[in-house]
């Protein structure tokens, strides 16, 4: 009981200040609550429409009634804004139709609406309304991967020239994978050296690992900006051999700086595992005639696999969500997923798409963590 009283304040605070807001935001990615309040009759009339051609007269009458009621109730604008994210002519089509049917005694709705905007003669216009019925939707998640449903409900990829987010996702995975690989190649010998050297000699080297680990991401991004800038030392050294290439605002700068930032996260888990490998085995291998490199490859390497998986996973997952370094050092056309989440939310105001992209990011993170958990446990069990 006393324990509960000690833990509860933090838990309640986190639920209110962090977990609640994050869940509420992520829910935006699968919610669809703007269209149903404005178009209840239309949605009811569309329920058994087959998605082919244009729905019948009763649906047009229902739409006319909905448009009049929604305009009066103020629910039309949010609904039109939501539908406009699906098909960019919807806001105009809805406004035109609403004007055309403003007078309830103005004759048959079908003719008036079709005259107001030809978009109402297309099945996809009606499909957009029906797939926004809510309360839950896969629309934003599909959009975050450049997919879309047609009026009949089948999923299609956007045309190749409109595919954006799959390219971004592939780029994010490619950069994260390259950084992880570089961290492993650079980090492994350092971790092995730190684990094998006597403690006193390793101490100074450990400081070389901890010093960058302790300085923050923004500080190290600034350091790389100075290092790689056109007045910086790297450009200065390269200019001895001719005009230096552009070192900043490209993927090279992003990968280099991210590798530098993530390297301690690779070295520290590797070191934790390597410290547990018995040194006697190494000595036994050597006394049995194995060359150092052979002893390293046959005795040492296999036992450090859990550290490799843990470090690689940690680095890769952190890279997937990176924002600051690519935003500062990367090219404008070469940004990673996190940049687009921020831009969709604050620049485009499309919180639902930002939330769906966040769900994709968190989903990829969780899936990878689960996939890696099994081989890691197996490797741990083998080495224990």
């Amino acid at each position, binding site marked *: 009981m006393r324990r509960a009283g000690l833990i509860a*304040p933090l838990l309640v605070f986190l639920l209110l200040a*962090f977990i609640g807001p*994050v869940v*509420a935001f*992520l829910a935006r990615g699968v919610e669809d609550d703007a269209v149903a309040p404005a178009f209840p009759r239309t949605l009811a009339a569309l329920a058994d429409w087959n998605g082919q051609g244009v729905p019948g007269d009763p649906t047009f009458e229902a739409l006319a009634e909905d448009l009049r009621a929604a305009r009066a109730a103020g629910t039309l604008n949010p609904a039109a804004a939501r539908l406009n994210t699906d098909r960019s002519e919807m806001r105009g089509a809805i406004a035109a139709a609403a004007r055309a049917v403003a007078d309830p005694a103005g004759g048959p709705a079908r003719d008036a609406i079709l005259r107001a905007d030809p978009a109402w003669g297309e099945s996809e216009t009606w499909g957009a309304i029906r797939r926004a019925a809510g309360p839950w939707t896969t629309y934003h998640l599909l959009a975050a991967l450049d997919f879309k449903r047609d009026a009949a409900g089948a999923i299609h990829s956007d045309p190749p020239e409109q595919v954006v987010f799959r390219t971004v996702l592939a780029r994010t995975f490619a950069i994260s994978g390259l950084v992880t690989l570089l961290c492993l190649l650079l980090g492994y010998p350092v971790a092995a050296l730190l684990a094998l050297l006597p403690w006193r000699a390793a101490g100074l080297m450990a400081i070389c690992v901890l010093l960058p680990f*302790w300085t923050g991401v923004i500080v190290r991004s600034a350091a790389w900006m100075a290092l790689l800038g056109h*007045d910086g030392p790297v450009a200065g050294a390269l200019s001895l051999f001719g005009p230096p290439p552009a070192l900043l605002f490209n993927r090279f700068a992003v990968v280099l700086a991210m590798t530098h930032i993530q390297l301690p996260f690779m070295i520290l888990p590797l070191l934790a595992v390597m410290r547990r490998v018995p040194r006697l085995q190494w000595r036994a291998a050597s006394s049995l005639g194995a060359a150092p490199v052979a002893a390293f490859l046959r005795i040492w390497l296999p036992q450090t696999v859990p550290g490799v998986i843990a470090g690689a996973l940690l680095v890769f997952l952190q890279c997937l969500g990176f924002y600051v370094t690519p935003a*500062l050092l990367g090219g404008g056309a070469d940004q990673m997923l996190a940049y687009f989440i921020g831009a969709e939310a604050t620049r485009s105001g499309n919180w639902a798409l930002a939330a769906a992209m966040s769900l994709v990011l968190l989903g990829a993170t969780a899936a990878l963590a689960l996939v890696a958990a099994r081989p890691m446990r197996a490797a741990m069990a083998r080495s224990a």
Partner: protein
Amino acid sequence: MKTAFLSVPGALVLAFLVLPVLIIVPLSFSTGPFLGFPLRGLGLRWYETLLASDFWRQGLENSLILAAGATVCSTLLGTPAALGLWRARFRGRGVVMGLILAPIVVPAIVTAVALTLVYGRLGLTGSLAGLIVAHTAMTAPFVVITLLAALSRLDPLLGRAAAASGAAPFAAFLRVTLPLAAPGIAAGAAFACAVSLDESVVALFLAGPGQRTLPRQMFAAMREAPDPTILAAATLLAVLSVALLAAAPLLRRRAG
């Protein structure tokens, strides 16, 4: 033990790790107008700019207020939670730990956008209070895990010894557990402070013009008009966080 074949690549990588951090220090004392070498001369020109211009001075002040506020709040919330979780076995402990660690696991950009949306509705954006709440949530997990690590090294018999010697539970806590935990609490607070000082993504999204922090100003300056003041700010932040984070393990060692 033959490690010679490791020492050359190892030394090169260690240089790669440490040199970029060290290089900002001389560059920040340059008196030239560029981010780079050759140094025109050594002086405090850019540190004077850091303290003299409103852009930078306000950033520094906001960062210090924010870090102090978030550290106090996250220590006050995190310390009892860690004491409650210490050697506790109850159903759902994993879930509770998962919830407490969530702010570390969720990518900063997701946190930033989510808090901008929800805090905006609550009128908490564009206020230092909102940033303190956000940073408290983001730093409290570090207080809990640092203190739990420190507590795990304490002798569990000490509390019982106090009880056996006739101390009431609260007195035993005040006279035995708390003094022993104090270095761990201080280490957790130092950790929280360092994390808050360096945090840029949430500050970037949540802060209004009046709450801009030093990392946020560094971000803006790097995007718009990079000058060596950025490196003076970076050196200042680096010295602060290295001091805080180097102090943390030393404090914890005293506990053990």
